[in-house]
Structure formats: structure tokens, C-alpha cells
């Protein structure tokens, strides 16, 4: 029997979700073809804001990877646009001259961003914010240019503006109205929002109408209706979206603002459906995924001839995805004569709440500064609850656990994906789920905007009761597995796994050979657990650690020899100078870590250069001890109370080469003036009268963090003992690539203090780190001594061809 042919136009969030709903009902019934104009698999458009803000990467926002299409026998034509629908002959025609017949057609073409048609709108440097391409354009522009303007102070515009700030640009937001997000917020909340964003560094031009984009080929400025002009290198138009209906209109399908559909998402043409942002249902066009997913569900049931109530419209809630700002809005927000409100305004703390009541029923709400009541309000407003229920509920435990306990099974937890409390509880019980990630994998809850993650966690805790373990609520280590770091490490220990390949096989990795995230991580964990037995896998090391030099953008390397404690000698400096001459090193530079870097060395020259230097590797490339910076200290400084150089050199000599989850930096200053910057190191030591203070968890990098005072000790011996214990505990407990600054915050300083307070524990940790240190080898020397490694890794095969 031939299968029913379904064709989907639009490989986006609503369309593909509808297909998932169809497959859920009957995975075998249809032959499915999908056309998508964008050259990507279905990805999470919502997360583009987070990509732009630097919180995630494009690689991580795919929702359905290519395997998913293959596994479900879906014919996908990506990068291909449908140009015409021939409803009479039931076929679609594409820009690649392909013609595909359908029995049922689904149009899910989404929206097109509205580009204000002012003179100059086509200039280079003007972009919308809708897809991956736009996102990349903004990121690339930020590398060369400084000034950005965002037209539109709504959700999308503000999220774009925050992203551009994070990319290092100066940002002006231009808004037509005098209140930001005026469709979702009232004046009070809008003004509070503006103040907060100004604090974050955004500038606002309110009540401004854009009249012209200025510049030659590229945008150079904007002129407004009132004659004022500003300079800018980038214009992001976030002035709204329009349903993408042109294809439908040209093909004779009834269109108003969007493609007109009934409660089953049927258009006026038989067997042609429309779903998502392109559709207009009961005079409403939606622009958020939650209602679109509900539409998809109703449509799928109808296509599969299942009895269903159909789609009846949705109440919308919005949240702004800008870190540090909590705003929430749902339902009606404008006060009228016949409405009443409950209001709370705390100017001091910056908290505002307004609940709108119509005929004694909950009708809408705006929250600013504290959105913890958001889910509760959404629930009550959705079911048009009596205001008494809200006031009563306010007294009950305000905690998340109290909230999930009080919810009905049918109430939604994840609005985006339409997952109810009952669905989640059922999945947790039936499939023995124990982590938020597992719940996400099984039910899709929290898979889209992620806003409901805390609720899912509360519900998990509530359902599991005492067996809930908060400490395991972590992410999978990479896309090849659903297992978390702790689960993997435990399995390695328990099952005695000894190779990366074995770990991947035994623990059911979904890819052959892992990926660039999990392979180095597994290699680290295996080595950490069995330092003596495990043979390090070169092929699982990132290039820098495999080659023992930092790779440069042109494929050359840099060479940084050890200079213990930043102390050197005329002899060493002479050697470095001679080597630099001999190998014609293009750049010699003093590093931020108190030593010398030789840049631009050819791969083939590395072993020879190391041999001539005859100095140990400084590991400027490694997940290991980098430098121990020191100040000059008591030997010369008039304030010095301690021998900082001596101690620093001793620390560096003892702990060099030890593998750590991320790089590990130390410093020793001989007095609290802290000239060696001990306060921003993974472990910093500061000399005080009669002893040393130890600071941990500092970071001078991307997220600056001052180190916390860990303890005060009297002798050098005690310093060494504490460092050994702290480092080994970090080695054993942290997630690969987790710097101490992040680890200390995650597990808590007090917890680490508690563990290391016990002398027996410290001794055991020191014994284990000593064991691991005992098998480390000087890597440059190893390469010099091994002809095989030199040949395999450092030589280029030169082959002559006749042409």
C-alpha cells in the first residue's frame, strides 16, 4: 500500500513540531517531505538571543539533527524554497525545479521581519534579527565596528541590544513610543525596565521616528523625523514581524493578516493546512512558540482522523531573556474603567507587581524585579480563576515545591512544549527519571526557552521525595551521551573502564568515536582515576596539548619555557636569545605570566628548538599548572615579610605537569600589597606577619572573580600541604573544563573547607596527588627522545609530483 504523502513547507519550529506530533500518533502511516529555505536542520530560533549574548553557540541550538530526519524516513530538502503551490494538481514546485506531489500539504513558512522602508534601508550594515544568518552578521560586524543601533524597543530589540553590548559594541535603542515593550508592560514597569537597562550600559532614544539611513554603500548614520542624526556602523531592525504569506496568497489561498485557518488549522483549500506564525486563527496571529505547538497538536490529531477538540486560542505570557532583568507579563495589562487592580511597588528594591481583575476574575498581570509568581499567575489567568483563589494562594507556601504541589495534573509546566504536570510525573515514575536533563529528553519539557527548568526541578524533587538528589542535577557531558560527568566518572570507577573507546562502548555513546568535547574529557577522567595505569591518548588531546605548544592562527606554534616563579638568569636569557636567532623567531614577548614567549615557530622546528633550549616546557598550553607568579619579597622589598620567590619556585617545581580539569594558576606575594596578584589566582598565597594566607577560586579572565580567603597557616610546609590537598580535591571533583572559580561557586567554599579540615583526608589527597605527580614526564624531552613521535607528529611528508 502506498503511504499518504505529506509535504511540509518550512523547516522551522512550528512545522517540524507538527511532524513530530504526527509521528507520535502514527510513525508509519505517512511518507513525509520537508522543504526548508534555510540550509540548516530545524533549530531553536528562540535561542538565537542567547547565541548573540554569548551564552550558547550555534552548534548547540539544533533541535532535530540530520539523523532525526533519516531515522524517521523524512525526505528533507534544505536550502530549497517552494515557489508555487498547485492546489488543483496537488503538487508543489521549488526553485530547484523540483515538483513534489502531496495528499496533504502543511504551510509553516513563519514570518518575515519588517524592514522599515525608509531611504537607505538596503545599505550594507542594516540587518534584521530572525535567523542564524542575521546572528552571524551581527557577530562579524562587532569584530570590526563599534557603534550599533537597534530600531525597536520590544522584546526582540532589547534582546538584540543586550547581545550587541556583550559583543563589545556601544548600543543605542531607538523606540517610537515613550515606554519600552509597551505591548506587554505598563508605564511603571516599562520605565523601571529602561532604568535597569541603562544601568547595564544601553542608551535609549525614545519617541523617535526613523526617517533615513545615511551612508555611502555602508550605513554610517541614522536621521530621525525631528531632524536629529546619530552615527552608527550597524542598524538592527527589530520593528516587528509580518506573517510570511506571499506563497499562499499567490497560490490562491485565503489570506487576511495571516493565512486564514479554522480550529483544525485547515485553510479554505481542501487538504491544505497552515500552522505557526504564518497562520491567522480567530483573528489572532501568534508570535511565540507555545500557541504554535498547541496548533500543531490539534492539526496532527485532525490529519490522523483522531477525535479532537481543535485549537481554541491561547493566553500569552512573555518573559524577556536578558540576564539581570526579570520581567513577566500575561494577559490584559491596560487598566480600564471596569477593571480593578492589585498593585505593589517597592522603588527601593526595584520590585513591581500589578494584577488586573475583570469581573472578579484574574485577567492579566505584570511583574518586574521578582518574577517568582509568574507561573502561578499564568495558571490562574489561563483558567480565569476567581481573585479569591489568588489571594488565598498567596498565603500558602510561596516556595516552588509548594506551587507544584498545588497544581492540577492537567496544568502546564512547560508552556512552549505543552507538557503538563501529569505528563512529567508520569514519565518520572514510569521511566525512573532522576535528572532535569532526563525529563527534558523524555518529555521535551524545558527544551525550548528553558524558562520552566526551575519548575521541572521542583516537580522532580516533589515527585521523588527523599530519593531526589540535588547534587546530580547536571547536564550531560556532551551531545554523544545523556550521562552527566558524575555518572560517567562513577561508571569508570565501578566498572574499571580503561580506555576512552571502552567507556563509549560500555556506556552506549550515540556516536562512533565521540566528539571534540567528550574525548578530551574522558581522557582526563581516566588519567585522573588511574594515574599509574592509564596510558594517555594523544589522539584525544586538543592540538595544543598534543603538540606541546599553542597553535597560532596561521598554524605555527609558540614556545614558552619554564621560568620558575618568574625568576631567570643571564644564562637562560642568553639561551633564549640564541635560539630565537637560530630559528628566526618572528616575535619575542614577555607574557602576562612572568616569562618569555617565542611566537611563530614552525611545527617542524619545535623539537630542534626545544633541544637547543634545554629547558622544561612552561605548559603555557595545558590544562595543568601554568605559572606561579611571585613578587620580589623579603630579599629586596622594604615591605616584604616572607620569602615569596623561594616559596613560589618550590610550588612550581612540585606541582608542574599535573593534569587538572582546567588550567591552574598560582601566585605568591610577600605582603598584602599583593604585587603578584594573588587575589585573582586559582590559588594565591599572601605573606602576613608570622605566616601565610591562602586564597582560592580567583580568576582574572573572562569572568573576573576575586579569590576567597581559604585559611591562614604558619609554615611553608603547611602551605604545600594545603595546596596539594586543594588541587587533588579539585582534580577529583570538578567537571572537565571547569575553572576553580566556577567550581568553588558551584560546590561552595564552606563545603571545600569542611572536607579539607580533616587531617586524614588531607593526607590521603596528598598521597594521591603525589602518586599522580610521580609518573609525569617532561614532554619536550620525551619528544626529543622519541623518533617515532617526532616523525608522526612534527614532520610534514614532502612528496614531489611531476606537475
Amino acid at each position: 500500500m502506498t503511504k499518504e504523502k505529506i509535504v511540509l513547507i518550512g523547516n522551522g519550529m512550528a512545522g517540524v513540531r507538527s511532524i513530530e506530533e504526527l509521528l507520535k500518533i502514527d510513525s508509519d502511516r505517512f511518507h513525509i517531505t520537508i522543504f526548508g529555505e534555510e540550509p540548516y536542520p530545524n533549530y531553536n530560533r528562540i535561542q538565537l538571543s542567547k547565541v548573540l549574548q554569548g551564552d550558547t553557540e550555534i552548534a548547540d541550538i539544533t533541535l532535530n539533527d540530520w539523523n532525526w530526519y533519516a531515522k524517521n524516513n523524512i525526505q528533507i530538502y534544505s536550502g530549497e524554497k517552494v515557489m508555487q503551490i498547485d492546489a488543483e494538481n496537488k503538487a508543489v514546485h521549488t526553485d530547484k525545479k523540483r515538483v513534489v506531489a502531496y495528499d496533504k500539504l502543511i504551510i509553516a513558512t513563519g514570518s518575515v521581519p519588517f524592514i522599515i522602508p525608509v531611504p537607505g534601508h538596503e545599505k550594507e550594515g542594516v540587518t534584521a534579527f530572525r535567523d542564524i544568518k542575521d546572528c552571524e552578521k551581527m557577530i562579524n560586524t562587532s569584530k570590526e565596528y563599534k557603534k550599533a543601533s537597534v530600531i525597536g524597543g520590544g522584546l526582540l530589540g532589547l534582546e538584540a541590544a543586550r547581545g550587541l553590548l556583550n559583543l563589545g559594541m556601544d548600543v543605542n535603542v531607538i523606540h517610537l513610543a515613550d515606554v519600552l515593550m509597551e505591548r506587554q508592560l505598563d508605564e511603571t514597569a516599562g520605565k523601571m525596565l529602561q532604568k535597569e537597562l541603562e544601568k547595564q550600559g544601553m542608551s535609549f532614544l525614545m519617541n523617535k521616528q526613523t526617517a533615513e539611513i545615511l551612508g555611502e554603500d555602508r550605513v554610517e548614520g541614522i536621521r530621525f523625523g525631528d531632524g536629529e542624526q546619530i552615527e552608527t556602523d550597524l542598524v538592527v531592525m527589530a520593528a516587528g514581524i509580518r506573517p510570511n504569506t506571499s506563497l499562499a496568497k499567490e497560490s490562491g489561498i485565503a489570506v487576511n493578516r495571516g493565512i486564514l485557518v479554522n480550529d483544525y488549522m485547515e485553510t479554505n483549500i481542501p487538504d491544505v493546512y497552515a500552522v505557526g506564525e504564518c497562520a491567522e486563527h480567530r483573528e489572532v496571529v501568534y508570535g511565540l512558540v507555545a500557541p504554535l505547538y498547541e496548533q500543531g497538536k490539534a492539526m496532527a490529531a485532525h490529519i490522523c482522523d483522531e477525535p479532537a477538540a481543535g485549537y481554541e486560542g491561547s493566553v500569552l505570557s512573555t518573559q524577556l531573556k536578558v540576564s539581570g532583568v526579570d520581567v513577566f507579563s500575561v494577559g490584559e495589562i491596560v487598566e480600564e474603567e471596569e477593571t480593578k487592580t492589585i498593585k505593589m511597588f517597592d522603588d527601593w528594591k526595584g520590585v513591581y507587581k500589578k494584577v488586573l481583575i475583570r469581573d472578579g476574575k484574574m485577567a492579566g498581570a505584570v511583574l518586574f524585579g521578582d518574577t517568582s509568581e509568574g507561573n502561578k499567575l499564568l495558571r490562574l489567568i489561563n483558567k480565569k480563576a476567581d481573585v479569591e483563589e489568588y489571594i488565598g494562594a498567596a498565603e500558602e507556601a510561596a516556595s516552588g515545591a509548594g506551587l507544584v504541589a498545588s497544581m492540577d495534573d492537567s496544568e502546564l509546566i512547560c508552556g512552549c512544549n505543552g507538557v503538563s504536570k501529569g505528563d512529567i510525573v508520569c514519565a518520572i515514575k514510569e521511566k525512573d527519571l532522576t535528572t532535569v536533563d532526563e525529563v527534558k529528553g523524555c518529555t521535551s519539557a524545558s527544551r525550548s526557552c528553558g524558562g520552566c527548568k526551575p519548575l521541572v526541578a521542583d516537580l522532580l524533587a516533589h515527585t521523588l521525595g527523599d530519593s531526589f538528589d540535588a547534587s546530580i542535577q547536571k547536564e550531560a557531558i556532551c551531545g554523544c551521551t545523556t550521562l552527566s560527568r558524575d555518572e560517567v566518572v562513577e561508571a569508570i570507577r565501578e566498572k574499571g573502564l580503561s580506555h576512552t573507546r571502552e567507556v563509549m562502548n560500555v556506556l552506549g555513546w550515540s556516536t562512533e568515536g565521540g566528539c571534540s568535547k567528550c574525548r578530551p574529557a574522558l581522557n582526563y577522567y581516566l588519567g585522573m582515576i588511574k594515574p599509574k595505569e592509564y596510558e594517555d591518548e594523544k589522539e584525544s588531546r586538543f592540538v595544543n596539548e598534543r603538540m606541546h605548544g599553542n597553535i597560532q592562527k596561521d598554524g605555527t606554534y609558540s614556545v614558552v619555557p619554564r621560568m620558575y616563579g618568574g625568576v631567570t638568569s643571564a644564562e637562560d636569557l642568553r639561551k633564549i636569545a640564541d635560539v630565537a636567532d637560530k630559528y628566526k623567531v618572528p616575535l619575542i614577548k614577555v607574557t602576562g605570566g612572568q616569562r618569555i614567549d617565542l611566537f611563530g615557530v614552525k611545527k617542524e622546528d619545535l623539537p630542534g628548538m626545544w633541544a637547543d633550549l634545554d629547558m622544561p616546557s612552561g605548559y603555557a598550553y595545558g590544562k595543568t599548572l601554568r605559572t606561579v607568579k611571585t613578587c620580589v619579597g623579603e630579599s629586596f622589598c622594604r615591605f616584604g615579610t616572607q620569602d615569596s620567590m623561594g616559596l613560589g619556585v618550590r610550588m612550581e617545581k612540585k606541582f608542574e605537569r599535573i593534569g587538572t580539569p582546567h588550567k591552574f594558576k598560582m601566585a605568591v606575594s610577600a605582603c598584602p600589597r599583593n604585587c603578584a596578584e594573588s587575589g585573582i589566582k586559582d590559588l594565591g598565597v599572601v605573606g602576613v606577619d608570622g605566616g601565610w594566607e591562602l586564597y582560592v577560586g580567583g580568576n582574572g579572565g573572562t569572568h573576573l572573580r576575586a579569590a576567597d580567603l581559604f585559611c591562614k597557616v604558619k609554615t611553608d610546609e603547611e602551605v604545600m600541604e594545603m595546596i596539594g590537598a586543594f588541587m587533588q580535591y579539585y582534580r577529583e571533583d570538578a567537571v572537565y573544563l571547569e575553572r576553580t572559580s566556577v567550581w568553588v561557586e558551584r560546590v561552595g567554599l564552606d563545603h571545600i573547607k569542611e572536607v579539607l579540615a580533616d587531617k586524614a583526608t588531607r593526607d590521603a589527597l596528598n598521597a594521591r596527588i603525589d602518586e599522580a605527580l610521580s609518573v609525569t614526564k617532561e614532554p619536550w624531552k620525551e619528544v626529543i627522545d622519541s623518533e617515532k613521535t617526532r616523525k608522526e607528529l612534527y614532520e610534514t611528508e614532502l612528496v614531489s609530483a611531476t606537475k
Partner: protein
Amino acid sequence: MEKVMEKVRIASIQDLPEKMGKTVRVGELELAVFKLGNGKVTAIENRCPHKGGVLAEGIVSGEHVFCPMHDWKICTTDGQVQAPDVGCVSTYKAVVENDDVFLLI
């Protein structure tokens, strides 16, 4: 126009490191040659389509290599960059005869 292929020997199979790349220069061309986990040998141009990263130094997984510069994932058999990134690199045919590895250029 018919292209004439030349067969050149690049190394013996034992000299290629397992599950890692090797830089090979043939005249003007610079290639990355991989001996994969399954023993198969593949060859692609040694320049990432993104920003020219040297692919021979990437982490090899199955038939794919991850560029060491910004982690693009590239198939070493058909040269295709994997989603969500796009692009491709030229591929070259490698054959193993007895102990010798040859490239068809």
C-alpha cells in the same frame, strides 16, 4: 576535459599515526591525511573553509575531524562541513597497496 590523475606514494602505512592527521605537501598542495580508527585512509585539503585552520591537527572521530581553531566538524570522506556550519573542502583519493599509501592527485 579529461583530468589526468597521478599516483604518488606518500608514506608506508605504519608511519601514519592512528586516529590522527598527518600533514603532506605535494608540490603546492598541502593535504591532511588521516588513518581512521577502521584502518581506512582519507585525504582532504589541509585548510578549514572557515578561517584556514590546519585540519591535520584536529581531533579525529569516526570519519570526521574537528578543526582545532573553532571546532567545525568536517567529514574526511566527502569533505562536507557538518551542520550547523556550512562549506566543504576538497577531497583526494587515497589507496593502500600492501604497505604503501598512495594519493591520486
